[in-house]
């Protein structure tokens, strides 16, 4: 059984409990043992960074060091959290003096140190590169059988954070959708930002960006949008009707998180999956 430390991100154990509900059983089904890091804190969400980059980096380095102390890499299902961990790890490699400053702070407060050995994985890359699509295909019990548009967002779509996938024309999620029995829908906006946490402070822009992504996916034939980012998931779903009104676009389409889609296909939560199918029939394009 593959063993990896688990970082739920900032909201999977709060507002986005659907991620927490689904990641645990899907990992069990695929023989992935998620090791809890009860001391892990928020990563600062690129918000604390605006005031003090060093503080955010120290919080992240501490989380990475907690995984490293167990000799494990770290897994998350949130693109934003994954990108933040990659950024901090890269910044520390790029500037050893800065790394030393951060590590001094982490050692002084938490008695651990990040040596750069543990790395962050997004669930998507872990499934495709480490578990393998064949194994996932074999484990499918309820094929998706829908036209699914993958939403990656910009956070992890850069060199060094997207595994071996192409940062600008990614294919991993489409390959995964195919393995789950769905039909991937290609569309231009799959890596465009939907504003992330700026939905609170810069609502109009974030709503227009959200509407642009959703309407592009719908125009390309999507019946369902699947998000690899937990924070963006909220914008794409909870704010979709408001986004449509603000931008004057048709945006009504069911949205689910990557963990939900995989868990549903592997046979978990069949009633939720049934509801999702019903919604696709009723309100999907």
């Amino acid at each position: 059984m593959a063993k990896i430390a688990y970082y739920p991100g900032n909201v999977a154990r709060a507002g986005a409990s659907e991620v927490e509900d689904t990641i645990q059983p899907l990992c069990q089904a695929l023989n992935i043992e998620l090791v809890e890091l009860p001391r892990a804190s928020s990563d600062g969400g690129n918000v604390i960074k605006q005031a003090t980059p060093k503080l955010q980096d120290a919080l992240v380095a501490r989380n990475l060091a907690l995984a490293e102390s167990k000799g494990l890499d770290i897994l998350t299902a949130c693109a934003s959290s994954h990108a933040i961990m990659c950024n901090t790890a890269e910044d520390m490699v790029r500037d050893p003096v800065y790394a030393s400053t951060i590590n001094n702070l982490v050692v002084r407060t938490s008695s651990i140190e990040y040596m750069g050995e543990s790395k962050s994985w997004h669930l998507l890359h872990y499934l495709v590169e480490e578990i393998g699509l064949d194994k996932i295909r074999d484990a499918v019990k309820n094929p998706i059988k829908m036209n699914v548009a993958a939403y990656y967002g910009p956070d992890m779509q850069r060199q060094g954070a997207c595994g071996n996938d192409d940062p600008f024309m990614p294919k991993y999620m489409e390959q995964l959708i195919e393995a789950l029995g769905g039909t991937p829908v290609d569309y231009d906006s799959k890596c465009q930002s939907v504003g992330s946490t700026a939905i609170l402070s810069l609502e109009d822009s974030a709503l227009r960006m959200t509407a642009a992504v959703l309407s592009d996916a719908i125009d390309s034939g999507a019946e369902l949008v699947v998000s690899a980012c937990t924070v963006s998931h909220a914008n794409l779903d909870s704010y979709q009707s408001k986004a449509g009104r603000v931008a004057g676009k048709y945006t009504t389409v069911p949205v689910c998180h990557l963990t939900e889609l995989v868990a549903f296909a592997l046979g978990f939560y069949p009633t939720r999956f049934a509801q999702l199918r019903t919604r696709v029939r009723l309100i999907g394009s």
Partner: protein
Amino acid sequence: MAIVAKVWIDEDCITCDACQDICPEVFEVTDDSSMILAAVRTDGTFDRNAGGSPLVGSLGTDLGDVIIEAAEACPVEVIKYELVTEGGDAPAVEAEAPAVEAPVAAVAAVAPAAGASEALNAIFSGDRSLNILFGSQTGNAAGLAEKTAKMAANFGLEPNIIDMDGFDPSSLASMKRVMIITSTWGEGEMPDNAEDAWNAINAKGPALANTQFSVCAIGDTSYDEYCKAGHDWNDKLSSLGAQQIHPIQECDVDFEPAWKVWVAEALPKLACVDSSGGFLEELLEEMVAYGAGDDDGAVEGDFTPGVIERAELNITVEIFRYCPEAAESGWDTLACTVPGHATVQDLLLNMQQNVDGSLAFRRGSGAGTPTTGVRVNGRVALSDATMVSDLTTDGGHVKIEPLPGHPVVRDLIVDTSRYENHRSRAEPWMRTDPREGARLPSGAAMGAMDPALATGLHQAGDVLSFQLIQAMSDTIAHDPHYEGPGVHFQQWLRAMDPRTSEVQRRTLLKSLQEKDGVWSEADHASLMRYGEDGRLAAKGLNDARGALLNQSRYAGKSGRLVKWYGRSVKWSGKVNETTLYRQVLGPLGLVGNIFSGVSARMALAFTRNGAPPIRSLQALLLPPAGVGRIPNMINSKVEHYHEVVSLFNEIDQRF
């Protein structure tokens, strides 16, 4: 002060690294022995210098004491050196002579070239002086002048580096060969050290009938007066009758590659100028070979130079087309074969010349022209600096679109006037307070900025194109008033430049803080994707936000988001969404979410895809949560929560 003429390493070096630690400019320790670096020796080879090749230039003077210190620190005493007294007397041998007799160091006399033609040897027999003038503010031009001088020796020239500060332009009349390397300062101004010389030559310029010259101009394409100082010198010398032997070379902020091209082409030409100032063009080919150290017959045996191969690519190209007259848009698709080294611009040129002459796109110089931005295979890139083979593989697909965030004029040409207007209003150019100049120990004027600071400043804004930075934003297409990251990044770079006047700095920061300012960018992640340029821009804009947060004391929605995000993490180690929604949106925002249907979608579990809605309803019902996506009012704390608090207290106690 001791002057070292030559230094060498005897056998039995124990490679302890002591010499390299003390004087890395001269010594490099390999696995076998300490070596004398090629760059410091007149013979230009890298070995123990058993032949006793003399040190180049003034190195023996500048580093004499350090070389001796290294020799004395050598535990096995294998570092030997030969000393020259300051008065220039005969060398006083401080150690036993090297095994091979050293060649006479005769920098002032140019030895005839072995195997060279009679004409070439004849030209070496006369005056070989080359005058390299530099106008420098931060030291870049001065550094290039020094490098140019080192290369000049390869062509049998005797370089003389001249700081323009205190330079008398009337002396130009007696110079046969002149190279000028100058930066441009502010809005087309001369660097501080060149101002007096410039004024003097304008007041009374000598006749320069026998002078051959070439100019290397350093500038910044983000300024309107790009490389103006260099052009001013070029035009002035021409107007005084001097012969421009090689065209002026413009160099952008990444000046080194362009300078290399210039110096490789201009030096051999100037080396073909005879003592009377005449250019012997017929010797140029031989001179180039001489400078490169070519020597027919030197290589023997079966030797085949390496060949770098890039296989041809068979690709499908899709190009966006737009005709403004018919207001029609669409895509042209064709299959083609391109050389492996072709750029996107090569591809477009080929299409324009062989398929459709009406295809419109902006053409660049081939070296990363800032205005050649397009979107290709999902990324924004400069078409003349992006290779097709970096975008796709054989049998692949290339999709070329106009740069996002700008209205399309025709095909791939976009209207950048919005960007230019924003930039014009933002005024991110230099306005300085009067300041004093600083001088190096040598007396060279180098401006007032600390070199480390100047380097840091240069690195912070070392991007190919601010227009491209502008197009990296995903927000700008959705907010017509947002000035954009390309403009704001320039403003921030200027604001943190210590030469900027206090009034200008305040104006810039005020502009960044205003509506449509730096807070209008919804997601810096969209910039971060674009390699080093995007990373630099995102970092700069994040730093700008940090400075503005300090200044504004976390005012406004963006400030409140940062403040309460930080506080909620400090309270428990986790983000508390309840706190965020309440503090950032406020009561009106929460009520707005109810009427806009956002709260309903949350509470009715649309985002749960059938999960029990009770968890969401709890948040609606239990005070003081307010309304919104708030299932957890009070977070449980992470284990060892005090460690998180300690980090906050150590780094930032404002939360």
